[in-house]
């Protein structure tokens, strides 16, 4: 139907287009890094007296990195066991029909915009937690984490961590559920045939098989929690203090929330400062995602042995 030359032309164009798209992705990512670096450079050479609060970049950044990590790790602390519970419930406990629709609901929740989680956290969850924080400060105040004085508004870093954990629950449960469902049926049945109870079967087959999946799902959740902006901005009382006290009114801010709070009014060097903090966030999430991928990749190598 066509001459060979034309065939080659069509093929070349199409191959060129699709390869070009792949390269474009490379370029975009390089661009993200490059433009962030270019816009960040003025900060490193700037005189501290020009920066807000007259602090050096690193002393400005320190509390933010601390806050970002604390909030995200708190989120992970709650979300990991809960997501395993949800995933197990859907994959191995709930009746199949129920499990399917529950799966859809969880997927849908993963797509709820973060601004909504933020509104809910600020107006519903935070006030609700105040009595709990009071109780903690009174009864567990000897633990530095709950030293108090308890926040009277509930807008603490623990609340922020809780909101973040609710936000990353859906995606983590979805990943865990997928991994659990992939457990070879033969293993499960063999274990049940040997007289194991359901829990023993899960402990001996499902969890070991899914371990690396759980870890990488947790890393992905961690990545999300690190980068979450609006919800933290709305929920957290961020006064810049570096403290392990989780229930007081003075909390460190997080990098993304700080950017969103300061950016609309920022001019001059402050803009560069915020972009530089964004670059640091980019590097942190990059490292976390890199670790997650590495774990997943190792898992697929071992799949043959495990399966």
């Amino acid at each position, binding site marked *: 139907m066509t001459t060979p030359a034309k065939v080659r032309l069509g093929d070349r164009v199409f191959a060129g287009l699709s390869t070009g798209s792949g390269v474009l992705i490379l370029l975009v990512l390089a661009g993200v890094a490059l433009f962030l670096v270019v816009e960040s450079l003025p900060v490193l050479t700037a005189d501290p007296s020009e920066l*807000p609060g007259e602090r050096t970049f690193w002393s400005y950044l320190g509390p933010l990195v601390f806050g970002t990590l604390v909030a995200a790790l708190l989120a992970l602390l709650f979300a990991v066991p809960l997501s395993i519970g949800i995933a197990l419930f859907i994959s191995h406990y709930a009746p199949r029909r129920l499990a399917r629709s529950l799966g859809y609901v969880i997927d849908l929740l993963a797509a709820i915009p973060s601004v909504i989680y933020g509104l809910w956290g600020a*107006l519903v969850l935070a006030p609700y937690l105040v009595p709990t924080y009071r109780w903690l400060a009174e009864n567990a105040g000897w633990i530095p984490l709950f030293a108090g004085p308890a926040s009277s*508004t*509930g807008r603490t870093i623990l609340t922020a961590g809780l909101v973040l954990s609710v936000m990353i629950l859906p995606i983590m449960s979805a990943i865990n559920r997928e991994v659990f469902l992939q457990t070879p049926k033969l293993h499960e049945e063999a274990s049940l045939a040997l007289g194991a109870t359901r829990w023993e079967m899960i402990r001996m087959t499902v969890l070991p098989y899914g371990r690396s999946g759980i870890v990488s799902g947790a890393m992905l959740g961690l990545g999300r929690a690190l980068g979450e902006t609006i919800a933290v901005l709305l929920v957290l*009382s961020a*006064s810049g*203090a570096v403290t392990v006290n989780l229930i007081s009114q*003075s909390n460190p801010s997080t990098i993304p929330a700080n950017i969103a709070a300061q950016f609309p*009014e920022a*001019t001059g060097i402050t803009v560069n400062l915020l972009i530089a903090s964004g670059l640091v966030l980019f590097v942190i999430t990059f490292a976390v995602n890199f670790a997650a991928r590495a774990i997943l990749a190792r898992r697929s190598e071992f799949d043959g042995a495990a399966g």
Partner: protein
Amino acid sequence: MRTARIAAALVAASLPLTACYSDANQGNAGAVSTGLSGQVAGAGSSAQSAAMQAWIAGFQSANSEVTINYDPVGSGGGRDQFAEGGVDFAGSDRAFEREELAEAAKPCKGGSVLQLPLYVSPIAVAFNLEGVDELNLSAKVLAGIFDQKIRRWDDRSIAADNPGLDLPDLEITPVNRQDDSGTTENFTDYLHAAAPEQWPHEPDGVWPVPGGEAANGNSGVVQAIAAGEGAIGYADASQVGGLGIVSVGVGDGFVPYSPEAAAAIVEASPRESGRGPGDLVVELERDTTDSGQYPIVLVSYSIACSRYDDPVVAELVAAFLSYVASEQGQAVAAQTAGSAPLAPGLRSDVLEAIALIEGTA
């Protein structure tokens, strides 16, 4: 691909729909063409944005051919964009300093920069204490509370300001802005001027004392105060709603915030010296002892050129600012943004300054 098409189709489909409704919003059947037409862009203070929206609404309704855009990028951004010639006028919570004026006048084609204190907004100190509706606090006590030196409500110094008031044995939760803001700058400026010993920090848009409850925006502060028993904070007076509001110590008495008292201090304070015509920068006397004046106010300026390239722009800016300065314009802002209407003396000065605006062509 398919979904993109669906999205495009949705957009296309909704366009005729929007066309039907596009006039529904003008909300003013009596809108008349006054001969003025064109577009003017402004940018700057977000504190002004509510009032600015009302002014724009009022002006556009009266002049249906005119579109005025105001971009609330923040005061610093507004000043920068003005100096770069990016916008025709700017709103700013502080005026250009004298040494900045040469730079700022660049887009003015040999004219000068006009700075008009058109938006005066009282900053209220609001609190949340069960059973307490009225509270008197002197500047020294306010400084002590916000510097976290006075930590409990039954502190002796608070009691001294409020004889006979039953104060609870409760922790004070001071609430401040976490974002850079003109409200914070004016509030710290007040504390710095009125209680220099108790308030060691320089005035700044970024809150200087760590460790308090921090919230984003006026509404965030108000929400935090409302949520926390024992909380006290400062916010734009229009936003504080049903919270208790502190009467601030002035001289020997205590003055509750009111638009009139806020306007009075702007009227009574001297103009900064060494400024050119139309550069009406007010040097607020925050440490006033006149009990008719409320000292915690935010003065936000409208900044314009005295000379524009385009005579249409010159005409529009002058007309718009005249409307803003008019009794009607100030009343609209008072109603919608809770600002304090300009006092008559200042208004005539402002109108004089606006008369300086001209087009070069």
